[in-house]
């Protein structure tokens, strides 16, 4: 069968970065083809070339066997290629209809196009479970629906091949399942889907074939049924990866943190953290599981001193730090915090790595005297941290935003762990992080525990919680639904996360 899309010997450089090295790939029509690889492996570049966003330095693109030149997105669209970008390309104040029509108006006036789009949207909604209110303002829709608008945009333009770049990164597990149903329907209707992701689980769940990219090269293509998660992980990283965390039994010591009847209310007076009590002991990892938005973020904020509790206590080594309501004092007490939102709270994108590596500890004496900051010491410190924690590239003067998510996270974890805390609180330590880096970050967290420190871990990845934690709390709607051991059944935890408590603790 003629491939829907063929890429032949595609090569692309950005300055000194060789983003795609001689990549050849054929995509069968009516299939779902996964492309995996770590961040920076060249997946997105390759797809951007296919979509006309960049031009390849050399190589050929064939659509249904015919060689084509794709110099811009409009060429790609004309050849029936549609793309759903990782960061949505929506005009937020526009309605769904206006967004769908933009660029495909088909005449000088937009009235007829809007009418046509309205009819087409009704049809697509029926055929593909793609219901969206056509008159809703795009920017006000939840991300799951915004993504549907992106898919609708591509289908409205007559896309035969749909490229999705990391589509589940922003979705809840439920939204992700719905997306996969949509993708299967698209496939059943004869469309071709290219799915870019770094999540192995998704690849196994939905694709027919999978291609692995590493450092700009396409290293392998496999039938999904004929491969395993372990093999793909190894191909991606280029070495054997431990997907399972190895750790010994915990030896818990005395209680370090005790949270008593803690309540935090938002601006509308709704209790987002509702009468929560638990304790964390030295030498153990307490994991807090839950679907995103059930009060875990707020709980972290209160413990880290960023938010002040409405009532209740946060007792850290015998002292109520909740009333301090000040992250600097909380840190001074020996608590370190790896925030959930790496980009906004963990570091400052426009700062160089050396500066980001001292945030929150910048006032401490070893880095300077009084108001003076010793630049030499700051850089030397960052260099040492980057060396120890394997941050790549190990360049303290590179802007923080230039590092991949995993390396940014390693830098933040390095900064927090080296403060030698008694308690480390970590939010979503591996969100958007490569599996190679995930392995490393997990190892460091376990190591910290084995050194007798306490760790409070919040993650929406149930696998991560189960593999790292010594005890698991499940939060739902701001309340603790129950506590389970590390061996807890996944289904049971899932029920607790959904707010179903058979035997509320």
């Amino acid at each position, binding site marked *: 069968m003629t491939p829907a899309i063929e890429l032949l010997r595609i090569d692309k450089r950005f300055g000194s970065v060789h983003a795609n090295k001689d990549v050849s790939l054929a995509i069968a029509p009516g299939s779902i083809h996964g492309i995996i690889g770590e961040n920076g492996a060249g997946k997105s570049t390759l797809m951007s070339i296919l979509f*006309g966003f960049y031009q390849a330095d050399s190589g050929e693109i064939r659509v249904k066997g015919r060689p084509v030149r794709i110099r811009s*997105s*409009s060429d790609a669209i004309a050849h029936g290629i549609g793309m759903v970008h990782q960061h949505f*390309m929506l005009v937020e104040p526009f309605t769904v209809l206006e967004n769908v029509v933009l*660029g495909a108006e088909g005449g000088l006036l937009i009235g007829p196009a809007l009418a046509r789009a309205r009819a087409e949207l009704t049809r697509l909604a029926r055929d593909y479970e793609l219901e969206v209110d056509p008159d809703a303002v795009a920017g006000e829709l939840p991300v799951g629906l915004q993504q549907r608008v992106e898919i609708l945009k591509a289908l409205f333009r007559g896309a035969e091949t749909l490229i999705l770049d990391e589509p589940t990164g922003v979705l809840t597990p439920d939204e992700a399942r719905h997306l996969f149903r949509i993708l299967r329907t698209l496939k059943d209707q004869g469309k071709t889907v290219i799915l870019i992701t770094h999540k192995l689980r998704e690849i196994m769940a939905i694709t027919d074939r999978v291609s692995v990219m590493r450092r700009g090269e396409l290293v392998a293509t496999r039938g999904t049924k004929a491969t395993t998660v372990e093999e793909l992980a190894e191909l991606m990283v280029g070495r054997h990866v431990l997907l399972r965390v190895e750790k010994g039994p915990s030896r818990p010591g005395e209680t370090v943190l005790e949270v008593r009847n803690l309540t935090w209310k938002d601006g509308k007076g709704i209790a987002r953290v509702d009468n929560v009590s638990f304790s964390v002991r030295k030498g153990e990892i307490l994991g807090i599981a839950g679907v995103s938005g059930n009060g875990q973020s707020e709980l972290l904020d209160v413990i880290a001193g960023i938010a002040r509790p409405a009532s209740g206590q946060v007792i850290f080594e015998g002292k109520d730090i909740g009333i301090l309501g000040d992250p600097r004092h909380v840190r001074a007490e020996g608590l370190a915090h790896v925030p959930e939102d790496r980009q906004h709270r963990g570091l400052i994108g426009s700062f160089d790595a050396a500066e980001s590596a001292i945030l929150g500890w910048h006032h401490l004496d070893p880095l300077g005297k009084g108001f003076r900051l010793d630049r030499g010491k700051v850089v030397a410190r960052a260099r040492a941290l980057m060396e120890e924690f394997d941050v790549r590239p190990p360049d303290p003067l590179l802007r923080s935003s230039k590092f991949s998510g995993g390396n940014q996270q390693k830098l933040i974890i390095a900064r927090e762990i080296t403060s030698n805390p008694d308690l480390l609180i970590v939010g979503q330590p591996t969100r958007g992080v490569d599996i190679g880096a995930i392995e490393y970050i997990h190892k460091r967290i376990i190591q910290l525990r084995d050194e007798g420190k306490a760790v409070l871990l919040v993650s929406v990845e149930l696998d991560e919680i189960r593999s790292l934690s010594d005890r698991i709390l499940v939060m739902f709607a701001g309340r603790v639904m129950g506590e389970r051991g590390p061996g807890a059944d996944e289904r049971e935890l899932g029920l607790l996360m959904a707010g179903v408590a058979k035997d509320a603790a």
Partner: protein
Amino acid sequence: MNLYIELLASTIRMSVPLILACIAGLWSERAGIVDIGLEGKMLIAAFAAASASAVFGSAWIGLFCAILASLAFALVHGYAAINQRGNQVVSGVAINMLAAGLAVVLGNEWFREGGRTPALPPEGRFLPFQFPALDGLPAVGPLVRIFLEHSILAYVAFALVPLTAWALARTRFGLRLRAVGENPHAVDTAGIPVAALRYRAVIIAGVLCGVAGAYVSTSLSSSFVRDMTAGGGFMALAALIFANWRAWPALGACLLFGFLQAIGNFAQGASVGGFQIPVQFINMLPYVLTVVLLAGFIGKSVPPRASGLPYVKDR
């Protein structure tokens, strides 16, 4: 009665350049190009119109040259903002300073009247249409004349408002233009060239500022004098913000500011209880009102999201 009619007529006259400049700014800024340089473009256009009209004796040639001059400045701004991804505010300020200086220097060199241009004869100006027959209408006649007896450029200005509102809302060009001002990435991935779209917006702004300038020097007045636009471009910008970047509210804002200017002109020499109000104080009113209105009386004003941001593809 007569005073009120005169005030109304003056309001309309003073509003015309504001409307033209404001709509110019609207097109530019809805496409994401901040245009601080409205004032400078208007000023250089006023100078070009008065000079060309004085030399060639035709208001239309004056208008043509005004548009050319303003367009040239607009393209400089476009080049800086779109191709070179420069800071749009800095580029706009540079245009204002350049225009103010250049007009006087060239004027002095060409006409030797200290930066002024020679007084224009009637055929060198855009004069108001006259409808004396309307006086035959009982009672409303004079009032109707107030509304109708303006130059062709004033008609253009008022016609632009519905035209702009319609074009932005209903045409392909308008949709794309609004989109590029909000999220140029979305426009690019939809297969539409961003730079070309933004250049078109900049060109529209240039043409309209040219008309505004020609109106100031060849219709409102009969020669160019230095700094004769007197901050009108900035007032138009204020009106644009005040109007939340929408055409019809922009008309309202410009009429309000025009009214204040008209009052300023009429109230010169007025006195309150024997105390003569200084002219400067009256002239200050529209600007003070602008500050007050912008400082908090208009609620939230939301500029186009990509406004002032150069478009760079990722990487």
